[in-house]
Structure formats: structure tokens, C-alpha cells
């Protein structure tokens, strides 16, 4: 099934024409409503009238996560708050969150995009779907929720954290679909196996996202649960989940490109690369009102394929992600930057600024251990003091990341000091296939 055949199966010429018309409108809208963009465009000598078609997008300046941070909280909003009906936020590279705002129309388009994605996975109004992403500032829960509701499915807003309740309800409600992170679903499959419930579930589809996953994980989820699993992609700055999703042919993720124009950029020159070549993914939000972004650099590495897909859709597809251009980690679906840990530790006098993050996956759940060095000055002969310090640091990290971490205090001088770029992360998970 295709949710919106008109938009998802347009000819390439029609799509280009639509994108061009929308870009022209967007540039004019942003120039007049967002001071930051007006100044940015003026600084490179571009006026709204200079952008005549989607090809002219290459002359427009990029937007980065830092721009959002620098304009915290509402500096990049194009409408007054009276027109904003929802706020979401994700972690920034330092203490400040990345804040996004949605108008009523933005939420409608978001639900439309998620509806397209879930339909791609097979979800219909007859399905019972458990949404097991976190509900809150994170876009996962409410984003998936609104899309599933738009389709007319029976939505069960589980949120995260209670696997036992989730598996019980999965059986009792006869849930046929689930939306959650892929690692959480693998964990759920284990819980189901332990409870002997695997043959009692009616699950057919899983729409998984918010973290990268490999083909191996994909196959494992499908075989363990005897379901079909689909990859949904999105990021809060651009919208949230639903920017792209893969179809039953799994030849890359179809981008809702009438709303989000994708570019893949050469990492060094930042010029668009040819289709099929790998580079950094950037999006221009063609229809967003609340916080529209031009050429927003996602830092995700992928390639584009604009050839029509066997499923009948003609929308551009992005390949499974090949990595990141920055040091962002996704832990239990939460975006984490090592710089956040660094900033948090500055607040703690008792430890040195040296730290090491060890990320692993145990029983399909991500674990984060943060090793810190005791400062010589605070050396103690009392276990109690070290334990209190461990708790204090864990709290500080929890506050900074919104994620619990296991803190391990290590011997002074034991963490590696390097001359050049220090290595602060050991990620033992295998998230990308190379």
C-alpha cells in the first residue's frame, strides 16, 4: 500500500518542479521572517529573487547544529510563539538543548510523513500498534504516535522502560505492529522468549529507528519475532521520525522529498556529490513553518539513489547509514556528544578533566560507562567518599545527558593522554557495516 500515491510516485520532472516552486517560496519566507537567515544570505550576497529553481540551492548557505545552539531557544523560529503549538528538544553538543517548534501545519505534515512511512511497512487502520519510543521532548514517541493515529491504527502509547508490561500487552491486546528502537526490540524479543510468549504474539511489523542498525540486526529481529522490520529515519532538527523509511524491497530509505530536499555533500568541499557516491546528508525543509532550515547538515554519511523503486515509489532513497562525520553517539536512542560529558565534568572538582566513555551493548541494551580520574587533591582513604563521589558524578551526567551512566573512578594518571586529538570514546557496538 502507498499512503499518498500522488506525492510518492511523482515523475522526476514533476518532483523537481514542485521542489523548485517550494524552495523559491521558502527562501522568500525565511528571508523575511528569520533575521539569522536574512543576515546569512546578505553576507554571501544572495537575495530571494536569485533563487529560481531547486538547482540554485547550491548557492545558499548551510545550517548546522551550532546555529541552532547559538540561537537558543527560539532564535531561528520563523513565526511568533502564538503560532507554535508544540516544542521538542534534543541534546546539543554542549549544555544547551537543540530546540524546535511546530505550527499546527507542521504537525499535520509530520503525521502525513509518518503515515507514509508506516504504510510503507504495511500498517493499516486495522492494526494495533505499540509506540515504544520515549514520549516527551524526544520526537520519537509523539511523532510516531501522530502518524499511526493518522492512519487510523489503534495506538497504544507504551513509551519506554517497562518491558514486562509491553510484552504482556503485546499478547493481551493482540498488537500487530510496534515502533521502537531496533536494540530495544531485540531486547523485547528476549523478554518474550524468557516468558515463553513468543508463540502467542500476533506481531507482523516493526518500524524501528532513532539509532543506526546493521543488516545483521535487521535479519535477527525478523527471524526471532517472525515479523517484517523497517527502518525509519528522522532527526528532530528537520522534523523527527518520518523523514525517510524503507519499503519492503529494502533498497534504501524513501525520503519524503516533497517536504525535505536531500543533498549528499562531499565532506571536504561540501559540494553535492553524484548519486551513488557517499557523503554527508543535508536537508532543506521545503514546507516547514515553525523552524524551517536550509541545507541543514545532518553529519550522517550516506548516498542517494533517485531511480524509481520496485515498490512503485519514485522518491529518492538514501542508503543505510555508513557512519557519522562528527563524534556524536546514539545511546539508547539518545544523541550524546563527548563534549557534553566534558562540560559536565568541569562542574566536578574532585576529578581531572580526563575521561573515557565506554559504550557497549549488553543483552541488546546499550550501556555507557564513564571513567574518570580522581584528582590528587581529593585522594581519600575512605570508601564512603569515593562512593559518594561516584553517585555525584552519575547524577551530573544524568542531568547533562538525560541518560544514566555507570561511573567508574579510576587511578589518577591512568587514562590515556594523547598529544593530538584525544580519544574519549570506545564504542564496542557494531553499528555500521563497512
Amino acid at each position: 500500500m502507498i499512503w499518498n500515491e500522488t506525492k510518492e510516485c511523482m515523475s522526476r520532472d514533476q518532483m523537481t518542479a514542485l521542489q523548485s516552486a517550494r524552495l523559491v517560496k521558502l527562501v522568500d519566507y525565511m528571508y523575511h521572517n528569520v533575521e539569522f537567515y536574512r543576515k546569512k544570505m546578505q553576507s554571501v550576497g544572495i537575495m530571494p529573487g536569485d533563487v529560481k529553481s531547486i538547482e540554485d540551492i547550491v548557492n545558499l548557505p548551510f545550517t548546522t547544529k551550532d546555529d541552532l545552539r547559538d540561537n537558543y531557544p527560539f532564535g531561528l523560529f520563523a513565526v511568533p510563539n502564538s503560532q507554535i503549538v508544540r516544542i521538542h528538544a534534543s541534546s546539543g553538543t554542549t549544555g544547551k538543548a537543540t530546540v524546535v517548534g511546530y505550527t499546527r501545519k507542521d504537525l499535520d505534515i509530520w503525521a502525513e510523513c509518518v503515515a507514509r512511512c508506516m504504510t510503507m511497512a504495511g500498517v493499516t487502520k486495522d492494526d494495533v500498534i505499540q509506540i515504544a519510543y520515549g514520549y516527551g521532548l524526544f520526537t520519537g514517541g509523539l511523532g510516531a504516535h501522530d502518524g499511526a493515529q493518522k492512519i487510523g491504527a489503534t495506538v497504544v502509547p507504551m513509551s519506554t522502560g517497562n518491558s514486562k508490561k509491553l510484552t504482556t500487552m503485546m499478547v493481551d491486546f493482540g498488537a500487530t505492529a510496534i515502533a521502537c528502537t531496533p536494540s530495544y526490540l531485540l531486547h523485547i524479543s528476549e523478554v518474550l522468549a524468557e516468558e515463553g510468549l513468543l508463540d502467542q504474539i500476533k506481531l507482523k511489523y516493526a518500524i524501528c529507528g532513532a539509532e543506526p542498525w546493521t543488516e545483521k540486526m535487521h535479519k535477527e529481529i525478523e527471524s526471532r519475532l517472525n515479523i517484517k522490520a523497517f527502518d525509519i529515519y528522522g532527526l528532530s532538527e528537520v522534523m523527527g521520525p518520518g523523514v525517510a523509511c524503507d519499503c519492503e524491497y529494502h533498497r534504501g530509505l524513501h525520503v519524503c522529498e516533497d517536504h525535505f530536499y536531500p543533498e549528499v555533500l562531499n565532506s571536504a568541499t561540501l559540494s553535492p556529490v553524484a548519486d551513488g557516491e557517499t557523503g554527508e546528508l543535508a536537508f532543506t525543509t521545503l514546507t516547514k513553518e515553525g523552524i524551517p532550515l536550509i541545507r541543514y547538515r545532518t553529519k550522517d554519511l550516506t548516498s542517494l539513489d533517485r531511480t524509481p523503486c520496485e515498490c512503485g515509489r519514485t522518491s529518492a532513497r538514501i542508503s543505510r547509514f555508513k557512519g557519522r562525520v562528527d563524534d556524536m553517539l546514539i545511546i539508547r536512542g539518545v544523541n550524546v556528544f563527548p563534549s557534553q560529558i566534558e562540560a559536565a565534568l568541569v562542574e566536578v572538582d574532585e576529578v581531572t578533566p580526563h575521561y573515557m566513555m565506554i559504550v557497549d551493548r549488553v543483552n541488546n541494551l546499550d550501556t555507557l560507562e564513564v571513567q574518570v580520574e580522581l584528582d590528587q587533591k581529593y585522594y581519600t582513604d575512605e570508601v564512603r567518599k569515593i562512593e559518594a563521589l561516584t553517585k555525584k558524578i552519575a547524577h551530573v551526567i544524568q542531568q547533562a545527558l538525560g541518560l544514566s551512566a555507570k561511573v567508574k573512578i579510576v587511578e589518577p594518571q591512568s587514562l590515556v593522554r594523547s598529544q593530538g586529538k584525544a580519544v574519549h570514546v570506545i564504542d564496542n557496538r557494531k553499528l555500521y557495516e563497512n
Partner: protein
Amino acid sequence: MFAKQLTVFIENRTGRLSEVLGVLKDHNINILSLSLADTTEFGLLRLIVNNAAQGKEALTENGFSSLLSDVSIIQIPHKSGSLRELLKVIDENGVNIEYMYGLSIESDSAYVVLKASDVEKVDKILTENGVRTISCEELANL
């Protein structure tokens, strides 16, 4: 009188404890008593040695951080219940005992190493009660 205790923070990794002890042995530091307070993640090795300052220096040279802290080494009087009496007095003075461990330096007498929340106050209490404590100098001559 206080004595100096040498504390070494060690991660629970194989061989770490023996490395510390090895360094001390190589520098002819004599260990009179030790206590290892350990958790699943780390251990605090507390040592009474004949020369704590030299011990610290040797450890520093070999890449181990350590701490010198004041503790009371108390001779336990040869009377049943005397340690208990002593602890009661310390308690009544509102001083907390952080930890305690045994020390054997003379064959006919027992000693304990005591670390209190207020070391000076404890020292005063001990003196007032006529309890014999051991100094760094005495340790060095053992």
C-alpha cells in the same frame, strides 16, 4: 600521638595489588599491617609501614598515587572489654570511627589502627585515658 598511614587507590585489575607491594619491597619498605577495603570496582589499600613518607615517594616514582593520613595506633590494654570501653568513650565524645584494623608488632600485645572523623580529638581522648599510642618514630625503629 599519630602515626602515618599510606593509602593507595587501586582499580580491581589483576596484578595491581601485587605491583604495589612489589614497589614497596624493592625499596625496602617494611609492611607492618595492611587492610584492603574493596568494592566491586576499586579497592583502598591502607598500609602501616616502617617509613610512610619513603613509601609514598617510592610509589610516586613508580606511577602510583597515594595519600598519607593521620591515624591512631592504639595498644589494647590487657583487660577484657577494654577496647569496647575505649570505643564507648570515643563515641560519647561525638567522634565517628571511619574504620579500624588490627596490627601485630609485639608478640605479647595487641594493637589496632583507628581512623576517626576527628583525629586530634581522639588523640586527646586516648591520652586522657592513659592509652599507649605509637608514633611514626617508633614504627621506623621496628
